[in-house]
């Protein structure tokens, strides 16, 4: 497998700025995100304090960023990263489309507005999980509630139903839900209710909604984005943000973070500046590592 020097996760101002700086420093980079960059930039009405670009609209800034990437010959890999493992000498990134290896990582995924359910954190790993396909084998002969935030999670529910006795599926979106796989459809019950909390004693025992309570052996929350601590196991947080030093270094050697994910103020130019710092810190980390090997 190709091992990149720096993997950058996120295509907002922080991630893009990090990518451009790393590229200038001749590093072999992997930039993961969306070709439309960042919805937070795209949808901004006007930005008044982006240096050199007074009264720029979000859409204009997005175009300027895209042009800058093209000039720097930087490609965006469109994938979703589920987990990043610090293996010691390198990082292993597990994506939907593929797995990747990199010597260092820069996290620039922004802040997610997603709120945790009551009991979710308390029972995490004790009946609460974020990956149905990962834990399905533990549910042989058991029941599971799956809270899906997008239609693509229906496939996870079907996978779970192949093993579990009963799957309760709670769609958190408006689209119609239709399970058609012959061998599993009778095992899946679609419930249109709003989950409120997870309850139990030693482990999770039921999912409580606004209207009812369902006894299950496990509860799965399948969201669009996972929280940083879930994304990088072992990462030290400070509330909802990743704890970093002045050099954007996290508690894990070789892992850096920048942009909204490390804290307020949530400003485009602050994110871009931090991306620059993170990239230079990653470059210096790689240099030191190389020297140590000699």
């Amino acid at each position, binding site marked *: 497998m190709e091992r990149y020097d720096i993997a950058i996760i996120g295509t907002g101002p922080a991630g893009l700025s990090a990518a451009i700086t790393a590229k200038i420093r001749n590093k072999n980079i992997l930039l993961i995100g969306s070709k439309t960059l960042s919805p937070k930039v795209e949808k901004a009405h006007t930005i008044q304090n982006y240096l050199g670009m007074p009264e720029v609209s979000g859409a204009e800034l997005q175009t300027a960023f895209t042009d800058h990437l093209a000039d720097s010959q930087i490609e965006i890999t469109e994938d979703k990263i589920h*987990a990043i*493992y610090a293996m010691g000498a390198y990082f292993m990134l597990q994506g939907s489309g593929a797995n990747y290896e990199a010597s260092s990582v820069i996290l620039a995924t922004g802040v997610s507005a997603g709120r945790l359910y009551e009991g979710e954190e308390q029972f995490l*790993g004790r009946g609460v999980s974020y990956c149905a396909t990962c834990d399905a084998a*533990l549910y*042989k002969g058991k029941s599971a509630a799956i809270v899906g935030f997008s239609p693509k999670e229906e496939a996870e529910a079907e996978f779970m139903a192949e093993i579990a006795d009963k799957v309760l599926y709670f769609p958190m979106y408006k689209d119609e839900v239709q399970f058609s796989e012959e061998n599993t459809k009778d095992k899946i019950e679609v419930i249109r209710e709003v989950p409120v909390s997870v309850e139990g004693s030693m482990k999770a025992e039921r999912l409580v909604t606004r209207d009812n309570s369902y006894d299950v052996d496990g509860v799965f929350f399948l969201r669009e984005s996972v929280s940083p601590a879930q994304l990088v196991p072992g990462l030290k947080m400070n509330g909802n943000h990743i704890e970093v030093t002045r050099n954007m270094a996290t508690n894990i050697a070789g892992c850096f973070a920048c942009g909204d994910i490390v804290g307020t103020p949530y400003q485009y130019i602050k994110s871009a500046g931090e991306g620059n710092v993170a990239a230079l810190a990653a470059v210096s980390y790689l240099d030191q590592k190389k020297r140590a090997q000699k």
Partner: protein
Amino acid sequence: MVKKISAKEFHEAEASKAAVVDFSASWCMPCGMLAPVLEEVSEDMAGKMDFFNVDIDEAPDLATRFGVASIPCLVVLKDGEKIDQSVGFLPKEALTEFIEKNM
């Protein structure tokens, strides 16, 4: 060294004064990632702690007995009694810290 044991051999872990049992499975990605890191830590702590690996597909009763609801799950045993557990992948430093605090 992390010793792979079956349900029948589990008495070895119970007989140990201080042991870490890694409950995992062949199909679990984070388990596969944790294994080499745990191997490294087990070398560092050789003589102070015994390390075992149990495949939950082969030993579902043990998984139930130790309340393993998600894997990888590291269970720390002191004279056969469970004193702590950690769920999910951990980088080397955090893993070392978790085991040391239970020594």
